């Protein structure tokens, strides 16, 4: 077993499609996939076209998409400092800030590095003792424990030239904000895969009970997604609101306890401005005050001048499930992966990028 091809079996997908459509739901139900990786898989495998009674809403679970311009401007400031080596993960360097992007800054000669692993910071710091190494930490609960381990190793090794700008976000708070938003009309959720590996199945129980909405924790492969959608369809029909764990090969009831302890050790809850959703109370994490001396926000006098978002961009509405990428006037013409206006187009897991790539628009 390699855990990939078995979960892409066309025959199983076809049978699951029949079973889902045989549930004969009485109306179209709105299902939000919280994770950007799920958006990518759903569009890639054309799953929405197989299931006429399910309308997919693309949620706020892409760490790059939810990053507000103000924090990107802080990244630009830090990366522009004399003697700085700016390190971060993934697509962040492409995201436009108010006046430029990290990618453009790098082209102008600034030392900006996209890392494969946060631990690469240790080697960079050791080899560049005369430089200020900035680790701009991003991501949901999936990457937070990795940042915690990096902090632990930096402290253990006594490295004095590493500073952290923490932008870690949490999944439960923005989901609860959406459930409290009268404009949002979500019937059930595909809960994220990797975040759930860390936080565990039980993390969704309160929301499922309080708001009477079913959750299905799903893997990324098409069979995983179809199985989860069958469960949600049956729950809609039976009017239940349980947390179903389809991804039991990786997600346990309580998640990864070691990772959760590491997060608690170094971080405290903090408010976070999610792009499109606004400020969410306790939606993010910050370094505990005792680590102020490695906190880039405290150590450096960061100055920014953040501009308002481009009014034509529908990213905020798309992240709330109030619009589809194709509803946006600039989608596919002014806004493309080569010239992204909004973050949903920048990140490969953003809803707009997925629509652009797989719908060939």
């Amino acid at each position, binding site marked *: *077993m*390699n*855990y*990939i091809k*078995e*979960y892409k*079996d066309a025959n*199983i997908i076809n*049978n*699951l499609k*029949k*079973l889902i459509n*045989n549930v004969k739901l009485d109306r179209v139900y709105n299902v939000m996939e919280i*994770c*950007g*990786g799920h958006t990518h898989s759903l569009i890639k495998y054309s799953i929405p076209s197989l299931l006429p009674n399910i309308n997919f809403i693309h949620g706020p679970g*892409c*760490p*790059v998409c939810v990053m507000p311009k103000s924090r990107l401007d802080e990244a630009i400031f830090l990366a522009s400092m004399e003697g700085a080596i700016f390190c971060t*993960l*993934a*697509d962040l360097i492409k995201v436009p800030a108010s006046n430029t992007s990290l990618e453009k800054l790098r082209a102008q000669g600034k030392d900006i590095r996209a*890392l*494969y*692993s*946060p*631990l*690469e910071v240790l080697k960079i710091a050791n080899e560049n003792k005369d430089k200020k190494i900035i680790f701009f930490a991003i*991501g949901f609960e*999936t*990457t937070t*424990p*990795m940042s915690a*381990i990096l902090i632990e190793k930096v402290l253990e090794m006594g490295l004095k030239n590493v500073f952290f700008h923490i932008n870690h976000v949490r999944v439960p708070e923005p989901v609860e904000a959406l459930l409290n938003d009268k404009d949002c009309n979500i019937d059930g959720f595909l809960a*994220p*895969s*990797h975040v759930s*590996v*860390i936080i565990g199945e039980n993390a969704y129980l309160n929301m499922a009970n309080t708001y009477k909405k079913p959750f299905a924790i799903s893997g*990324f*492969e098409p*069979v995983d997604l179809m*199985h989860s959608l*069958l*469960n949600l369809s*049956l*729950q809609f029909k*039976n009017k*239940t609101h*349980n947390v*179903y764990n389809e991804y*039991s*090969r*990786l997600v346990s009831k309580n998640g*990864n*306890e*070691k*990772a959760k302890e*590491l997060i608690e050790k170094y971080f405290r809850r903090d408010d976070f401005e999610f792009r499109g959703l606004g400020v969410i109370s306790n939606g993010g994490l910050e370094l505990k005050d005792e680590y102020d001396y490695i906190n880039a926000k405290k150590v450096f006098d960061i100055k920014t001048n953040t501009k308002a978002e481009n009014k034509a961009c529908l990213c905020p509405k798309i992240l709330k499930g109030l619009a589809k990428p194709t509803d946006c006037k600039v989608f596919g013409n002014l806004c493309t992966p080569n010239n992204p206006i909004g973050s949903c187009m920048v990140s490969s*897991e953003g809803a707009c990028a997925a629509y652009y790539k797989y719908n060939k628009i």
Partner: protein
Amino acid sequence: MCLSIPSKVLSVDENNFAMVDTLGIKRGVSLDLIPEQVNVGDFVLIHVGFAMQKIDEAAAKESLELYKQIADEIGSEEIESRFL
């Protein structure tokens, strides 16, 4: 960011680093996030240079067994009992 490709553990060194094979590509990853023992031959889920969790082979096999039994003749009551 969420690539979800299981990787097979090829070796584990004394620093809790493993060499893994991800679809033919070999790379080193940290095992610092995994509470239990990781052995050569295990499958793990990798994210940004760390193994996040071991894959539970029994759970994976159980799900696949269930899917393989899915056929048109399964009645609706049985579907509910198996999938809810």
